[in-house]
């Protein structure tokens, strides 16, 4: 059984992709270290400095509805969060473009209804990956999230969609994808 433990940052509703990565960085190369320097710069004034979010050392983000919404497909959002050390995001719902990007890069976006109401920034959480149980070790509450689908785990295990596809091209099984 895999468990991941760490503290969380609690976001409000509608944290937008536009604010996670602000416009001046949309055309930067997709690179976790670079993208993480200014990730979340538009979300909170305290994060609007170099490594402002990263330096907080959070492991998880807890959010409510439509995390990373606003309709931007930029992948810097995901690589920025990964570069900042985020290992999973738990929320009521996710914007679909970034939900795809998260799967493609292997950052778990985990649907977990109501979790934001019972977590505060800095709380320590323990995520049991296979079962989907999330324990808030600070207040003792337990949440059942939707466990990760097998395809998502396969992609994550390969290190993301790119290595996953590369492997399929190499072993000739690319045409069998259905």
């Amino acid at each position: 059984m895999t468990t991941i433990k760490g503290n969380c940052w609690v976001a409000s509703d509608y944290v937008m992709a536009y604010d996670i990565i602000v416009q001046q960085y949309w055309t930067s190369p997709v690179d976790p270290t670079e993208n993480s320097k200014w990730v979340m710069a538009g979300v909170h004034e305290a994060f609007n400095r170099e490594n402002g979010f990263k330096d907080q050392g959070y492991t998880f983000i807890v959010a409510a509805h439509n995390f990373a919404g606003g309709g931007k497909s930029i992948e810097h959002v995901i690589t920025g969060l990964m570069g900042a050390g985020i290992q999973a995001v738990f929320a009521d719902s996710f914007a679909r473009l970034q939900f795809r990007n998260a799967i493609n890069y292997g950052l778990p976006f985990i649907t977990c209804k109501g979790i934001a109401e019972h977590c505060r920034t800095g709380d320590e959480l323990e995520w049991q990956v296979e079962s989907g149980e999330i324990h808030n070790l600070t207040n003792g509450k337990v949440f059942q999230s939707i466990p990760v689908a097998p395809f998502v785990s396969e992609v994550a295990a390969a290190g993301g969609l790119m290595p996953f596809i590369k492997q399929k091209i190499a072993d000739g099984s690319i045409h069998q994808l259905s």
Partner: protein
Amino acid sequence: MTITEKIMARHSGRDKVVPGQLVWTNIHTVMTMDYLGKQTFTQLHKLGLSTVFDKARVICVSDHLVPPPTPAFATMLNEWREVVKAHDITHFYDLGRQGIAHQIMVEQGHVLPGTISIGTDSHANTYGAVGAVGNAIGVTDAAVAMATGKAWFRVPESVKFHITGKWQPWVMAKDLSLHIMGMMHWNGHLIYKTLEFDGPAIAELDMAGRMTLCNMTVDLGAKNGIIAPDEVTRQYLSGRAKGDWEMIASDPDAHYEAVYEVDVTKVGPTVALPDKLDDVVPIEKVVGRKFNKAFVGTCTNGRVEDLEIMAKILQGKQIHRDVNMIIVPASQTVYLEALKKGYLQTLVEAGAAIDTPSCAACAGIHTGVAGDGDIVLSAGNRNMKGRMGSKNAQIYLTSPAVVAASAVRGEITDPRTFDV
């Protein structure tokens, strides 16, 4: 099955799919554009590949950065051109033959009913207007599709909007889009769903209106929006479609997670207030509010029909001295048609500036971006702070008809009460 489920089943080699299922499907066309295209090709190269799956089915468009407003963007465009040419892409719509990518995809027949097309820009949902599954994806997904002709999808739950009644004078598909936005809110009900529009008021809607309606489903959080092909579709695609297609529709016993009825007779001109798309009101609530910039264009409302309705309203009128109005046709084809029909002349005579077909100020990049204190009345698709430039600007969203009538008075005006 619903039409979206049928399309996903057909192109993943299955007899049946169910919502929630993850499938790999064949992709008819992949679109990428100047803003993210170079990154897309870079990802393709990282897969160890130097060629795309089909040169005629990877569509490249210059739309976000043309004409380039800064040396940095000019350089980006040069790099983009170089990479597109290096791959010998058959359909490259560069400056001079350009348009907003989604307009190009539909008007040039690169999207066919019953197939799946994807693009690296969020408003790829527009393709649903001709009965295709149109879906926005990131550069990695696009690169994988360019390499393999395939993409993975989670089959979405279907939600139906059954639209009845009669369209009222000066009421446009944009008003219905904004009305639905206000009705459903941006709170998660429609995230990841497919939205299917049908009913007598949809049957009557022209292709321009269908494109507007499907375009904005992404702003409702949906995966795609779709209208089953019919006679309007057949006529529109005649002479455009690059490939064969056949009629497809949802089964009579298809399952919908929810069905919403909207009587379009009761929908009037509608406005989204600044900052939040779902903060929507009937125009009566905001009539008389002042603004200083008017903008019509974009993949939502830059088509000939949009220019036509504005020309009707602005014929023989003058735009108010306190308003700067910019109009951007959605493509060179739209531009030329509006020119030939005399709409552009009418608009210029009224005091509007016409600019080169591109995404223009909608993405806050160039061609009339908003500055501090600007109040913009826009027929675009998004109004969050900073979307069109300054974070200290306000953006109201509405239809081209409302923008045109309001531009004359210098304050938000109901086109139904306007003396045309």
